[in-house]
């Protein structure tokens, strides 16, 4: 195995210098997610401004993958419309669940493409999705229609 394929520079950078970390007020939806096998946890808040994701703030502890993924998440969705954010969520989910067989679209996923290597390690998929599950649940709490959730994450 090539460790570098999984722990790409981008991931380690986000891990060491996470973007958007911290819990901020006000917020419209909040979610606490935990990975039951390893105890990683993430608390995430989302603030909406009409149809727009105005802010995502979070705290938690966990492995490099789960923390970097949350950091990348904020880059990808903050400032976007809810629909755009949901389609990023769908694309990211498809990528990391793809067992390394999904070709990521850099235009959509930006730094998220770095998680292509993680997709080859099914045990780490939950880590990579922890923040995204929290984001989805927080959106629902903020009143976003369940039917709009986009790709299923679980």
């Amino acid at each position, binding site marked *: 195995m090539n460790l570098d394929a999984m722990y790409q520079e981008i991931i380690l950078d986000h891990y060491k210098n996470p973007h958007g970390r911290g819990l901020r007020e006000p917020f419209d939806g909040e979610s606490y997610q*935990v990975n*039951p*096998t390893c105890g990683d946890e993430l608390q995430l808040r989302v603030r909406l401004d009409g149809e727009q994701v105005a802010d995502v703030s979070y705290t938690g502890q966990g492995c490099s993958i789960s923390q970097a993924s949350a950091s990348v998440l904020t880059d990808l969705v903050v400032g976007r419309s809810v629909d755009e954010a949901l389609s990023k969520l769908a694309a990211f989910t498809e990528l990391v669940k793809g067992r390394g067989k999904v070709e990521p679209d850099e235009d959509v996923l930006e730094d998220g493409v770095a998680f292509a290597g993680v997709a080859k*390690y*099914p*045990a*780490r998929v939950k880590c990579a999705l922890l923040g995204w599950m929290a984001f989805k649940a927080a959106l629902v709490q903020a009143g976003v229609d369940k039917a709009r959730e986009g790709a299923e994450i*679980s």
Partner: protein
Amino acid sequence: MTATPLRAALDVAAVRGDFPILTRTVRDGKPLIYLDSGATSQRPRQVLEAERAYVERSNSAVHRGAHQLAEEATDAYEHARERVAAFVGVQPGEVVFTKNATEGVNLVAYAMSNAATAGKEAERFRVGEGDEIVVTEMEHHANLVPWQQLCQRTGATLRWFGVTDDGRLDLSDIDTLITERTKVVAFTHQSNVLGTVNDPAPLVERARRVGALTVLDACQSVPHQPVNLRELGADFAVFSGHKMLGPSGVGVLYGRRELLEAMPPFLTGGSMIETVTMERSTFAPPPQRFEAGVPMTSQTVGLGAAVDYLTKIGMGAVAEHEKQLTEAALSALGEIDGVRIVGPTTADSRGAAVSFVVDGIHPHDVGQVLDSLGIAVRVGHHCAWPLHRRMGIPASVRASFYLYNSVHEVEALAAGVREAQRFFGVGK
């Protein structure tokens, strides 16, 4: 255009070649004639090899590790779940692995009494005084005693459908038996004694109308005929790996997704939790919620291989083959003076468990004579004691056929019964 129903071609000789045990002899060199698949079936080479390959290559704890073996083990386990689910027409998330079918029935029955102290989402599972559980008189103990015990724990009342003299379910009082008070209707798809195949439709419909849950005992149907649990419409169903060419130690509980999602856990411990503190725990979504502890991993891999094996042969072909054997057995045994078939005497809506009694010879003694000829049958009440009482007999001899049995073996059975009559000096 006329549809020509194909007599599906099942090559018994080829099938038998896959089952190492069928080449052995018993009782001083008699070739084994195994007519006890209703109790447990034999495992083909393909199942043994799948299990062994797993153990020699990927064996490790599933859902618990981040190393390569754990990944492979988890994949193997979940892949088996997918194939088992597809085999009975349901979603993988609706398949819970248990140790046997018995555990599956107990799981539902205990989850229901656990609902008393569980959260609001579990409300629809609660039972108590005034509530009723409905079963049938032809149930295997596995689908009867757990419901008696649920009644004992909760104060609910057990009621049951009777059986007709020719071994059919007597549904004449369905509207007075299944009422607004009914919480569960639990019944067998196919009797392990009579062979009777019950049509789930009227029971499922009536239960649905009154808001009762249905639990289908599919132990004797899933191994022997094409079964689509979704189409049958039952809320829950159970079956066992060891009766369908798979390993012992693994069974299946099917539950409709929305029900499993609301149902409280049964066995608790590792792998089924979400969070745990000393004070309290929350639980994982199904199916994990119902699979506490390190599971029977290699056994599920074996069950997956069994399902592949059966799929390749085709469940239609299996059913057709068994129908031929059943017809042959009903006719060969029916011809013998002093032999009485317990259950339907034609092969319509009937599986390949053929039980009978022989006038003047106790079933145990019939079984002993057959055993001396190399023929393995089961004697006793086959875990359906109330049914035997209903049929007016203390016990019976049961021959149960599967895809590896031949018409020749059916003939040997009939000859063996005649030999028993000769030995004990009864019959003509």
